[in-house]
């Protein structure tokens, strides 16, 4: 077909079709801008639409993610084989070191328990968690969030904390029936109430899309130095107290940055923590509720 010389019919039809297409295109571009605007105002319908789509796509993504994680596991395995001897040596030393810590921990736990009884202290809230698999990554340089394969069916609700054994990942920002989105602590919109473990100074951990979120709203005169640990403060009631978040990595010109504990590159599973700030008296500790 010669595209440079259209026939008679094409000469009449093509511009017409072009006009209709152009109109549709212009209309849809406009519609996109309207959607962006509506999204900014937090309309419930938009969130429903989002979670409806993620719910539908979740099973497909779970299937697609399977070979990826299989390959990844295989590569990991090979990598570990090479370093087996050194790893073993290192682990032996670590076990020896941790054994003594274990003793200390047991003693402190018993001590704490007796203190609590003396003070008639009501426990720090009941928590249970649901394990979820990461099935989609927030794409592009501007979004820091992941999609996981659990939702309201397993008790996952908006606002709950998501963590790995290493530390806090973020909070649930949307929850569908079987999928949920977790806004990472590094995202621009993330605000987490935290405290500096050593000085007990409360602050807000504010993400700015960089790898190192900032510590803001620290009380005047509080001293923060590099290396101090930051944990969730539990203020506001949605997040439990004491989830490790990160360590202070830099204090420059009034800007305090935190290096999160979480290994972002290996984020395969997260625990979504269901937290009840006003617990019945005799409940304590974390217990797995369901594992998917």
């Amino acid at each position, binding site marked *: 077909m010669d*595209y*440079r010389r259209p026939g008679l019919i094409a000469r009449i039809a093509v511009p017409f079709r072009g006009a209709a*297409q*152009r109109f*549709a*295109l212009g209309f*849809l*571009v406009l*519609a*996109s*801008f*309207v*959607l*962006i605007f*509506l*999204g*900014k105002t937090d309309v419930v319908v*938009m969130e429903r*639409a*989002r979670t409806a*789509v*993620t719910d539908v*796509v979740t099973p*497909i*993504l779970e299937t*697609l*993610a399977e070979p*990826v994680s299989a390959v*990844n596991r295989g590569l990991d395995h090979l990598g570990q084989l090479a370093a087996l001897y050194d790893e073993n040596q290192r682990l032996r030393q670590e076990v020896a070191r941790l054994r003594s810590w274990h003793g200390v921990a047991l003693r402190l736990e018993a001590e704490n328990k007796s203190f609590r009884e003396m003070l008639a202290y009501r426990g720090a809230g009941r928590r249970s968690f649901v394990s979820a698999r*990461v*099935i*989609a*990554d*927030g*794409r*592009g*340089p*501007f*979004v820091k*969030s*992941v*999609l996981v394969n659990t939702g309201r069916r397993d008790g996952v609700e908006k606002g709950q904390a998501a963590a790995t054994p290493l530390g806090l990942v973020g909070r649930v920002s949307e929850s569908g029936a079987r999928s949920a*989105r977790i*806004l990472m602590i590094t995202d*621009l*919109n993330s605000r987490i109430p935290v405290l500096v473990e050593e000085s007990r100074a409360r602050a807000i951990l504010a993400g*700015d*899309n960089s790898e190192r979120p900032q510590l803001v709203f620290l009380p005047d005169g509080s001293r923060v130095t590099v290396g101090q640990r930051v944990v969730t403060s539990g203020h506001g009631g949605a997040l439990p107290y004491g989830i490790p978040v990160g360590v202070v990595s830099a204090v420059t010109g009034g800007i305090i940055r935190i290096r999160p504990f979480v290994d*972002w*590159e*290996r*984020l*395969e599973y997260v625990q979504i923590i269901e937290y009840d700030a006003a617990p019945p008296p005799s409940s304590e500790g974390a217990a797995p509720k369901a594992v998917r």
Partner: protein
Amino acid sequence: MKGGFWQNLDLWARRCLPAVFCLFFVLLSVLPIPIPGYSSIVPMLTLACIFFWAIHHPRLLPPLVVFAVGLVEDILSGAPMGAGAVVLLLAYGVTVSQRRFFHNRSFLQVWTGFGIVALGAAALSWLMAVIVSGAFAPPQAAFFQYLLTLAVYPLVTWVLHRAQRLVPVEV
């Protein structure tokens, strides 16, 4: 063209191929791949896919489908709904309007054309992110994303050229 039920179904399924491939690339680009730094520079696979079909079979990929694909991508990647759709629609519009230029050109010329469209798209999506979030974002990640997109384009085209043989010839 009148055939039996199965023949019609087959034809219909083949006509859906461009849309199906676009959705597939959306899913592919949100898969969590554990390579350090990868998640912030994921190539714009969907853009490459839409560019390809906009040149070869724009009638099988009407603007409404591009819009829908963009929305699904926004939803899955957690971006503000509509932000990615705008970029894809505009890239689609530009490509369709210039598609005659791309016919009977060498691969290198088409690749260059894609480079220009993708540069515009990357710049626009960076701009959208800055406007929507209301905060300045360093453009380096967007630039690396652009380079990676350019690098994977031949692979995407290779796959789609094979798929294209299944698509019915336009009458």
